[in-house]
């Protein structure tokens, strides 16, 4: 019975897909080759199982077949298995065409060093002209490793305008809405935290103002571009002198704020693991995230995730850094038989909103329908309560291409893409945008420095130790661990890189 049911479902899927292809075809061409004869591209990316994946795949294939003469096979791999599986696929030479990559998952730099990805410079210029032109040459610089671009950048928020988030209901209860919205520095957050803490002391559910003060200490908060371990470059310094971040005045200020706030009892003494903090935030135990990325439309995302309406304000000045630009990439495999078609596929994903939204939002009428077509606002199709109930909701727009082409799912997000693009455009580029540090010559020192930061830096980030003593101790240990060796090597590489760029 089960199989019969499945067969019928497959037939349904195919029929629906065909019907949809017809609706989606804008410029049907007369001579369309049979889809089976066309090359089939394989796209591998992290994501959970989606009930209607086959349906979306069929629709995308039909759309692509007409435009670039290829079809697609979508191959999502569970988040938790992605690194292992893609690593084996690469190492074993199993053929595929495109894979999601980033410095934080399916490591981009490893893929480049191991030559698992092919250089894309010429291919992008020839087969993806619109995509290539959609970003400035400086932006593309960030994806360059050893002179070539190996990863296609997904356009999204590149800058990290950090700032505090606060639950709107609590903010209103303490009556400091105007004060919060006028914040320009973290120091001024203190009276608001104090008021929230006072409120929390009388409230049953809310236990403390905030739960994790460590993000205050993030280098991007204070105008530095972090390169590796504790080493940073001041983004206003055109000569790009490498500094030890924990020696800067900014680090001391941040650590002092953390220490003061910790002693005032605004945050718990034991810093919980991430998923517990997550649960705690959902449960409503805390009201403030002291420092997180404040982006246009971000409040709606936070509200959807943790179930609380929030207000946020950006404090850190947005800076364009390498890490920010290449946070999400797609690479083309060395095993690809049709790299030019793979790049043409990326062109479609990044410049054709209809195609891109098929992959990221599903199909019109099946998974979503227009709530307001002019505003590009959609809602779950056929009266479904949420997009999660529609059978296709990967919810990872930023993985597939230019998010500025994504349809909005929440009315408060409308206009967020324009605002984000504006932020990216106006951000000051870091003097080392596009530089990547090769740590292979100083691996031992890097490992010791990381260990020291864990042991002596983390307590400062949680406010557990006295600032003066803590920083002095940290500096001593960092020197012993050989941070100067790393700094010298990094400065040498940066100087060479700057010299090469100047030529």
């Amino acid at each position, binding site marked *: 019975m089960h199989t019969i049911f499945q067969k019928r479902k497959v037939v349904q899927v195919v029929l629906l897909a065909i019907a949809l292809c017809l609706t989606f075809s804008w410029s049907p061409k007369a001579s369309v080759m049979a889809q089976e004869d066309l090359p089939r591209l394989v796209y591998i990316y*992290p994501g*959970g*199982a989606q009930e209607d994946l086959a349906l979306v795949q069929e629709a995308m294939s039909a759309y692509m077949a007409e435009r670039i003469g290829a079809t697609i096979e979508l*191959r*999502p*791999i*569970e*988040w*938790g*298995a*992605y690194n*292992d*599986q893609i690593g*084996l696929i690469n*190492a*074993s*030479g*199993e053929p595929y065409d495109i894979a999601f990559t*980033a410095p*934080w*998952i399916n490591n981009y730099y490893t893929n480049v060093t191991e030559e698992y990805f092919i250089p894309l410079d010429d291919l992008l210029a020839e087969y993806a002209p619109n995509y290539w032109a959609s970003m400035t040459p400086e932006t593309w610089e960030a994806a360059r490793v050893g002179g070539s671009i190996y990863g296609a950048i997904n356009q*999204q*928020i590149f800058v*990290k305008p950090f700032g505090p988030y606060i639950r709107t209901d609590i903010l209103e209860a303490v009556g400091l809405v105007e004060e919060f919205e006028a914040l320009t520095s973290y120091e001024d957050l203190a009276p608001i935290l104090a008021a929230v803490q006072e409120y929390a002391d009388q409230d049953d*559910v809310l*236990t403390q103002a905030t739960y994790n003060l460590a993000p205050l200490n993030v280098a991007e908060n204070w105008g530095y571009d972090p390169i590796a371990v504790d080493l940073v470059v001041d983004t206003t310094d055109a000569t790009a002198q490498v500094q030890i971040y924990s020696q800067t005045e900014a680090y001391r200020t941040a650590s002092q704020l953390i220490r003061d706030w910790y002693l005032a009892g605004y945050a718990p003494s034991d810093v919980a693991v*991430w*998923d*517990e903090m*997550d*649960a*705690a935030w959902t*449960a*409503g*135990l805390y009201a403030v995230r002291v420092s997180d*990325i404040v*982006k246009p439309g*971000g409040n709606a*995302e*936070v509200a*959807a*995730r943790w179930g609380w309406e929030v207000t946020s304000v950006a404090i850190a000045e947005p800076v364009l850094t390498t890490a920010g630009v290449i*946070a*999400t990439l797609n690479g083309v495999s060395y095993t690809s038989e049709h790299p030019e078609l793979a790049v043409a596929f990326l062109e479609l994903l990044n410049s054709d909103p209809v195609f891109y939204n098929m992959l990221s939002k599903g199909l019109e009428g099946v998974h979503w329908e227009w709530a307001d077509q002019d505003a590009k606002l959609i809602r779950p199709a056929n009266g479904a309560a949420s997009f*999660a109930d529609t059978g296709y909701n990967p*919810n*990872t727009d*930023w993985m597939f291409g230019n998010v500025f082409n994504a349809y909005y799912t929440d009315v408060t997000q409308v206009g967020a893409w324009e605002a984000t693009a504006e932020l990216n455009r106006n951000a000051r580029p870091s003097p080392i945008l596009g530089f990547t540090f090769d740590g292979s010559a100083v691996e031992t020192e890097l490992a010791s420095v990381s260990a020291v930061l864990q042991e002596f830096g983390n307590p400062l980030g949680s406010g557990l130790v006295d600032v003066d003593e803590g920083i002095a101790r940290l500096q001593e240990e960092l020197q012993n661990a050989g941070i100067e060796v790393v700094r010298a090597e990094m400065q040498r590489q940066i100087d060479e890189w700057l010299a090469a760029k100047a030529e």
Partner: protein
Amino acid sequence: MSHTSNLRELRRQDTDRVMSFLGRFSVHIALIIFSLCCLTPLLLIISASFTDEIALTRNGYSLIPSQFSTEAYDLIFKNPRAILQSYAITIFITVVGTTIAVTIMSLLAYALSRKEFVLRKPLSFFVFFTMLFNGGIVPYYILMTQYLRVQDTIFALLLPYFVVVFYVLILRTYFAALPEELFDAARVDGAGEWRIFFSIVLPLAKPALATIGLFTALNYWNDWTTSLYFIRDSNLYPLQYLLYIIQSNAQAMQLQSAVGNITVGEVPTQTARMAMAVLATGPAALFFLFFQRYLIRGVTLGSFK
């Protein structure tokens, strides 16, 4: 025997008794502490799975639920397809896999144990060589995916444990210890090799087979790495892999939030994860209790000549 020596004898017995009581007492204390160390985490998980989500976050873990709730189980049983499906997969691979594996391994071990078998030496070398040297994970992956082409099928989950060399070694030693005269007698009575194996060797080797069967079954039951490498189809997730994926997906989510992306609602609540863990381990624990006596007998297997 004089009165005094009798008394001395009695006193000596008394001291012996006290000493042996003290010895036993301290051993028991040590074992009780050890069992508590093993049991407490399990009890914490069970307790957490029956705790209200908010209460758990606020009060932390405790041996007795701070606020009793079956919400986590309600949530899982509202859509139990994933867990039932993976139970079915796990039970299938455990039963079928163990049966096939024990059959193959005992046949192989028996052949290797018979001195008159011509290819005994080369075959032994072929089998035991792999115990010391193997190609590593990438060749294994290539073999499974490009030659055998079993990725994303149930065979990928079954194949890896069909022959575990160490178990073959145990079985071979056991078979070799059976008296040669038995086989001669059987042969005189007109039994062929198959008859000898099935009617004489196997019944005599029951404890060894049960032990190997248990080990193999546990291997199948607990295996999640095979799925991590070869399984993408969520209909084929065994239980342990389902648990692994739920946990590790939560960790991967943390990575993406670090770059400013927020993916909405895929991470189950803490209590739901605990309830999943209870549902996944509970039956396995019972299974273990049931087979325990074989296991204990199996441990002594190492002590034969």
